[in-house]
């Protein structure tokens, strides 16, 4: 399975995301932000970082990048899945591919720490049978959405991860969500930082491998 790691100017979690994908059984490749076609990939990852310096708002400029047109085309052709991690999640929200928005953390500053996550009942992460400990590292991770949108996501099992102890003030402690047909996933924690023997744990592999199983199951 092939996975693209999209690199915007200012992206900075590209190399570890690449390595984590390779460790999870994907064949990874970097894709520069002016890339036209994503057809060859089964998974497209928008990694963490500060695309375009996070100027204006995180993700607000990156959504106008040429590669985002390719992402939209990729999704309309039902070619595969798009995963946004941290800044990638923010880009997906700005682009309207996922509902809601990100606000400044309640504490007002950047937080970097390991957090415990409850894996909710969803088709994508159904086989992850344990709580996960993953790193968060963000200033703007307070997820918000209208109550009716949250309710709908809840009913459709599209809330994928929740913080056990809410670190940033996110609505309903939401840490990860999916779109209607589970072809777009956004998550604030960094699974790529928990995938190697020298990392504190291997919980990030659970995430990438669950996605790989889901892609097989969907025969993308």
């Amino acid at each position, binding site marked *: 399975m092939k996975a693209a790691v999209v690199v915007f*100017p200012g992206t900075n979690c590209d190399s570890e995301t690449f390595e984590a994908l390779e460790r999870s059984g994907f064949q990874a490749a970097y894709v520069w932000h002016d890339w036209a076609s994503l057809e060859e990939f089964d998974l497209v990852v928008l990694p963490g970082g500060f695309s375009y*310096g996070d100027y204006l708002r995180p993700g607000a400029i990156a959504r106008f990048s040429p590669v985002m047109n390719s992402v939209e085309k990729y999704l309309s052709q039902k070619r595969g899945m798009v995963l946004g991690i941290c800044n990638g999640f923010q880009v997906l929200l700005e682009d309207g591919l996922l509902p809601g928005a990100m606000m400044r953390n309640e504490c007002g*500053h950047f937080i*970097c*720490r390991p957090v415990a996550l409850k894996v909710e009942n969803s088709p994508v992460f159904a086989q992850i049978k344990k709580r996960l400990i993953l790193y968060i590292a963000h200033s703007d991770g307070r997820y918000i959405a209208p109550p009716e949108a949250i309710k709908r996501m809840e009913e459709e099992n599209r809330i994928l991860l929740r913080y056990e102890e809410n670190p940033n003030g996110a609505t309903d402690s939401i840490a990860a969500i999916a779109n209607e047909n589970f072809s777009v996933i956004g998550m604030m924690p960094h699974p790529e930082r928990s995938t190697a023997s020298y990392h504190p744990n291997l919980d990030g592999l659970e995430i990438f491998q669950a996605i790989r199983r889901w892609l097989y199951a969907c025969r993308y």
Partner: protein
Amino acid sequence: MPADIESLKKLSMSLEDYGRIVEALGREPNPTELYIFSAMWSEHCGYRHSRRLIKEHLRPPGGNAGLVWIGDWGIAFKVESHNHPCAVEPFQGAATGIGGIIRDVIAMGARPIALLDSLHFSRPGSRIYEGVISGISVYGNSIGVPTVGGEVRFEPQFELNPLVNVMAVGLVKRGELRTNQARGVGNSIVLLGSKTGRDGLHGASFASRELHTEVDERPSVQVGDPFTEKKLIEATLEISRLKSLISIQDMGAAGILSSTTEMAASGGLGLDLFLDQVPLREEGMEPWEILLSESQERMAFVVEKEKEEDLRRIAEKWELDFARIGVLTSREEFRVFYGGELVASLPLSLVVNAPDLSQEMERLYPTSSKIAFWSGRVREPLLALLSHPTIASKKPVYEKYDYGVRGKTVKPPGADAAVLHLEGKKGIALTLGGNSRYTALNPREGTKAVLFEACANIISSGGRPLGVTNCLNFGNRLRGRNNC
């Protein structure tokens, strides 16, 4: 230019230095030339009080940072202070301090992999404390280099003069190491990065001056742009792999002036600069302003003549400004052209070799280690120690830093030393610290203790000490007792 004491004072230049210049040139320097000397002969650029000591006691391997080898990997590391800018504008002072030290590391062709900070404040929550920590957080996090360790100490003495020392560590493959040594008459000097503005003029002479009160010195502090820095890191590392590239130098204090003259001088050559070519941020800048500007996020390169296009392509990919601003010459001469006129013409060796003032340093610092008495009680002194902010957990500080980006952090902050994964079963242990109490009481023994503690931190984290670097922060000895 007939110089009066007032205008020399504004340039932080002594009358003795002015006399030396006139004597060496056999004429009065013109205004542009005087500005050149004011920057290059400042303590900040010229290490005038410490150069002799450095030469006597150390044999630095040359280049922009220190270097040790682990197998085929070179670990470049350097620590630098940004105390004065942080005293005046803590946020930007800290941010640009990081930007500057990172550029020292990329100038060697090394990818920055870690930052550490040694911070000395008066108390937690002070204006300077808050500003410096958020400056490190915003700039360091954005450029994607993990801040993995360091120290935070609190002493009332640091109320107005904080100490902000930043260490950057980079990784370079054997064979890809770069230096700042220029060669080849006719080769081009190229500028890459941000446009040049009036920010940070006199930064070099400013940093060499004493700060007594919170005076309004803001125009001398530069403003950082971490997004441009991140692009500059990637572009510089791409450029450093070009065959046509000869040397790299970061632009720090005294900007274009010091970076280009240092490269030419280290290659035993001269240079011509064409200031009309420099991309400018504002109109009507004087030649000396262009030369001395400390606008952030710029690098200088020497590239084989007619191979500038290789660099231009990379500059365009990363959306950075690019210009050929000079050429290496055979004469040991530094010439500056602007608007078709020759605005400065000086012997290069005179410009880059500021007169050594270290012979003035005769008096040793007083040592005053006193015997401490113990009352025999344990509980109260122990509680007092544990509640002191210097000893308390630094979690509220380091949680604001992204210590895990790049995915190589094995031991995060909070341990004796940070540990990063290198390859296979190899790792790098890093520590940074300076006990200012020990060194103030007894400089010699205190410094030994600092070195011992650093080694102990590395060893207790499973490492073997391979290399040491330092950044020494002194008060002005001419102003009496060292106030740190």
